[in-house]
């Protein structure tokens, strides 16, 4: 597939926003249980505002993907069958929940924990919808695996919790150490789950071949003409036109920037109590996740490509 930056930003921004919100909720729940020192009200509403801003930016990116954004409301129609439609419904619902959660904290209203629980449930639903958009297309074999869902959840949470750690450090909260530990743990888990999907995809056997594509059972078939000289939608949308070497380079860049460097920066930031290092961890990780998502799209090999191998 040819990675579209609108979708790359959509999925990474949503993941980070969801991760920030889940961090807030888990912190509040554990604080209510007396397991950690409760952070200030400011931490909650600022965190909610950041989460909301990330979600809104993701929503904006998704609009840039559409040919007819003015008709986007129609996308809520087919929620019975389409994961994309479900996402279109769940995302605004989640944004409302996050806004309500932050506002309730700001106003000092009671029952924020319940609001947070409801928001967390919607948040998990949103993860499911976003991941299933990709995982449900069975002939995109690189995506059609539960690991897609696992990675969307873990990577989203890792980036969000890293951001929450940076926020806690800036606000000088007592919970910085504990959220920092979570961020490191989640980022390491993300490295494992993403490596698992890389390992799996490297061993995939494509089920479609030129033989099944045109129905001729001969071991040697070559395309001589795809039917047109210039490009078409099929050559632009589904080919990234990068060399395998470039793809490998992006892979190592994202493994370093999304996982290894952020963990080192997080550890250094927590040890030295310098918030700038944590903020840097956040930025590097987000950049790394952009590269990760780019690779996620580029690696998916669509069976339609079998039909578009030679100009003439």
């Amino acid at each position, binding site marked *: *597939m040819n990675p579209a930056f609108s979708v790359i930003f959509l999925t990474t921004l949503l993941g980070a926003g969801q991760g920030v919100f889940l961090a807030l909720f888990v912190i509040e729940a554990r604080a209510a249980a007396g397991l950690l020192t409760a952070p200030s009200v400011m931490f909650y509403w600022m965190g909610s505002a950041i989460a909301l801003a990330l979600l809104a930016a993701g929503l904006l990116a998704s609009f840039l*993907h*559409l*040919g*007819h*954004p003015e*008709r*986007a409301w*129609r*996308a*809520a*129609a*087919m929620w019975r*069958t*389409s*994961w*994309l*439609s479900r996402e*279109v419904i769940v995302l605004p619902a989640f944004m409302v929940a996050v806004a309500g959660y932050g506002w309730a904290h700001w106003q000092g209203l009671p029952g924020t924990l319940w609001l947070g629980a409801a928001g967390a449930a919607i948040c998990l639903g949103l993860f499911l919808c976003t991941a299933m*958009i990709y995982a*449900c*297309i*069975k*002939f*995109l074999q690189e995506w059609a695996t539960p690991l897609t869902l696992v990675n969307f959840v873990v990577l989203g949470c890792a980036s969000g919790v890293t951001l929450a750690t940076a926020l806690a450090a800036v606000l000088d909260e007592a919970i910085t150490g504990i959220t920092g530990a979570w961020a490191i743990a989640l980022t390491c888990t993300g490295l494992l789950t993403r490596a698992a999907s890389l390992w799996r995809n490297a061993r995939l056997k494509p*089920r*479609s071949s*030129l033989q*099944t*594509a*045109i*129905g*001729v059972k*001969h071991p*040697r*078939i*070559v*395309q*001589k*003409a*795809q*039917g*047109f*000289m*210039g*490009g*078409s*939608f*099929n050559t632009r*949308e*589904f080919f990234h036109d990068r060399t395998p070497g470039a793809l490998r380079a992006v892979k190592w860049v994202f493994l370093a920037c999304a996982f290894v460097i952020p963990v080192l920066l997080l550890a250094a930031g927590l040890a030295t109590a310098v918030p700038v290092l944590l903020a840097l961890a956040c930025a590097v990780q987000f950049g790394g996740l952009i590269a990760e998502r780019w690779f996620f799209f580029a690696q998916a090999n*669509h*069976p*339609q*490509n079998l*039909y*578009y191998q030679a100009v003439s």
Partner: protein
Amino acid sequence: MTQLALVIDLNVCVGCHACVTSCKEWNTSGAAGFMSDDNPYDRDPTGTFFNRVQTFEVGEFPNTQTVHFPKSCLHCEDPPCVPVCPTGASYKRPEDGIVLVDYDKCIGCKYCSWACPYGVREIDEHQKVMKKCTLCVDRIYDTKLPTAERKPACVMACPTNARLYGDIHDPESVVSKAIRENAGYALMPEWGTQPANHYLPRRKTEMRIHEDELERADNPLKIDGRLPKPGIKDPSLDDVTSW
């Protein structure tokens, strides 16, 4: 239930692209609006098409076969492109099985094109909606056309009659018979899409002549002998002197 479809005979297709141009001509002139092109007479021409003819070489020189392979939406019986569409713009008509896009509902998210394994959906870069073969739904039911012309434009245009059109659920239709009698097959059966369009394989064209066909069957007693050879001087038909 009806499932209209095309059956394409790869044994007969000569790769002339007549179906491509007639498809474009018909569908760019229809009520649904034009199918946009960019740089049609320039470098890197590109445009929206419902139908493409591709060419494959099978085998190794000198034992090669050239296979011309027309490809358009296969109107799958279980179309993966339809349930993924968030707006309901992509739908399959229950009455005749044609898969269509409602251009007024489509938001141009391209998700359906990702969900089609055959690469037959193309976004119109100017109208920003998804387009694909309609099986000339605006022709085949047009009562103003003579009955013989109520067929998709590509079928009408094919000079070798490589494209058959009909209802594959009717066992007596020309397409069902062609599939049955000539080993018609579906593309990429591994994904369970059950394409309605079928292809007929390349076949070796042989002429079988039996012994009894070399003799006059209406001469069972063999009373005809050899015809007498005319003398060299005798007039003959191809000889003007015979006048």
